[in-house]
C-alpha cells in the first residue's frame, strides 16, 4: 500500500463530521419557511416545462407582433407624411424663407446665410412649425381682411 492509499484509507475511516449539524438543519428549515410563498405561487409555472416553454414562445411571438406592427405603422405614417410635405411645398418654402430671416435678423449670426440652407429638422417638428406658422398667417389675414372689408354680413337662417 503506497502513501496515497494510506491517506485515502485514513480519510475513509475518519471522514470529517458535520459541524454544528442542528444549526445547518435549522437554517435550511428556516429558509424554506421564509421563502416567499406568494412568489412561489405566482411563479410556480416556471417549474412546469411545457408551460414555461409555451409562455416563453408566446412572449417572443407577442414581442415580434408588436415590433412588426409598429414598424409597419411607422413606415405607413412616414409615407403619408412625405405626401403631406410634398403637397404643402409652398408652405415649406415660406417656412424656409422665414427661417433664413430669423437666423439673419434675430440671431445676428454672421454665418446664418450659409447655415440657413442646410438646416436639419424632423418632419414632425417641421409640420408643427408649419401649422403654427399657418395659424399665425390666418390670424394676420383675418385681421387685415376685417379691416379692409369693413362690413361683414352674416345671416344664419335655420330651415
Amino acid at each position, binding site marked *: 500500500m*503506497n*502513501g*496515497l492509499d*494510506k*491517506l*485515502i484509507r*485514513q*480519510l*475513509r475511516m*475518519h*471522514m*470529517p*463530521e*458535520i*459541524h454544528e*449539524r442542528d444549526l*445547518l*438543519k435549522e*437554517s*435550511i*428549515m428556516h*429558509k*424554506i*419557511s421564509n*421563502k416567499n410563498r406568494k412568489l*412561489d405561487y405566482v411563479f*410556480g409555472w416556471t*417549474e*412546469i416545462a411545457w408551460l414555461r416553454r409555451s409562455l416563453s414562445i408566446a412572449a417572443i411571438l407577442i414581442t415580434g407582433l408588436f415590433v412588426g406592427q409598429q414598424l409597419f405603422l411607422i413606415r405607413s405614417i412616414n409615407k403619408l407624411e412625405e405626401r403631406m410635405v410634398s403637397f404643402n411645398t409652398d408652405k415649406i418654402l415660406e417656412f424656409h424663407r422665414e427661417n433664413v430671416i430669423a437666423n439673419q435678423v434675430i440671431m445676428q449670426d454672421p454665418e446664418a446665410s450659409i447655415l440657413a440652407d442646410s438646416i436639419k429638422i424632423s418632419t414632425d417638428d417641421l409640420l408643427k412649425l408649419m401649422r403654427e406658422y399657418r395659424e399665425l398667417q390666418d390670424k394676420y389675414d383675418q385681421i387685415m381682411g376685417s379691416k379692409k372689408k369693413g362690413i361683414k354680413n352674416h345671416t344664419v337662417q335655420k330651415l
Partner: protein
Amino acid sequence: MSISYNISEIKSGNRNEFGKLVEENMDYIYKTALVIMANEEDARDIVQDTFLNVWDKRKAIKTRESLRPYLRKIAVNKCYDQLRRRKIRKMESWIEDESKIKSIISDEHPDKKLENDEALSLLKILVSGLSPSQRVVFTMVELDEMSHDEVSELTGMKKTLIKSNLRHARKKLEEKLKDYLS
C-alpha cells in the same frame, strides 16, 4: 433502508415531512459535498442549496422511492458547477503539520482517529491541484467508494473518461506526495 418521509406530502408542501428528509440525508449529502469541495463552508452551502433546490422543485419530483440518489445528483452537480466557475482554484496551502502526514504514511499510528481539522487538511492535500473533473471523479471513487457506473450516472461522464480522470488524478497526487515527503 426504510424511508421516514412521505414524498407526496413533501410535494404538496408539507414542511414537517421535508424536515424528515433533511434529517435523514444531510450527513450523507454533507460528506459527498465535503470530499469534493474539501472545504467545510463550501460543503455547508452545497447542502443548504441542495435542499432548498429540492424544496423549490418539489412539484417536479417524479420518484416514488428514496430521494437520496436524486439529492446526491443535485449536490454533485452543484459542486461541479462551483468548481468550474472558480476555474483555477487557489492552491490551498500544504499541510502545516508535516509530522502528521508522515506518521500516517509511515503507518506509525494506523488506527488513530483523525480530528476534524486534521481530516480536512488531509482532504485538501488530496484534492487541491486537481482539475474539477479529476477532483469529482477521484473523490467519488476513492473516498465515497462509488462504482464507475454510479459516477457515470451522476456526472454524465463516459466510463473511459472516468478511468482516465482517475488515473491522472492518482498520478498527480502520488508525484505531489513524493515531492512533499522528499
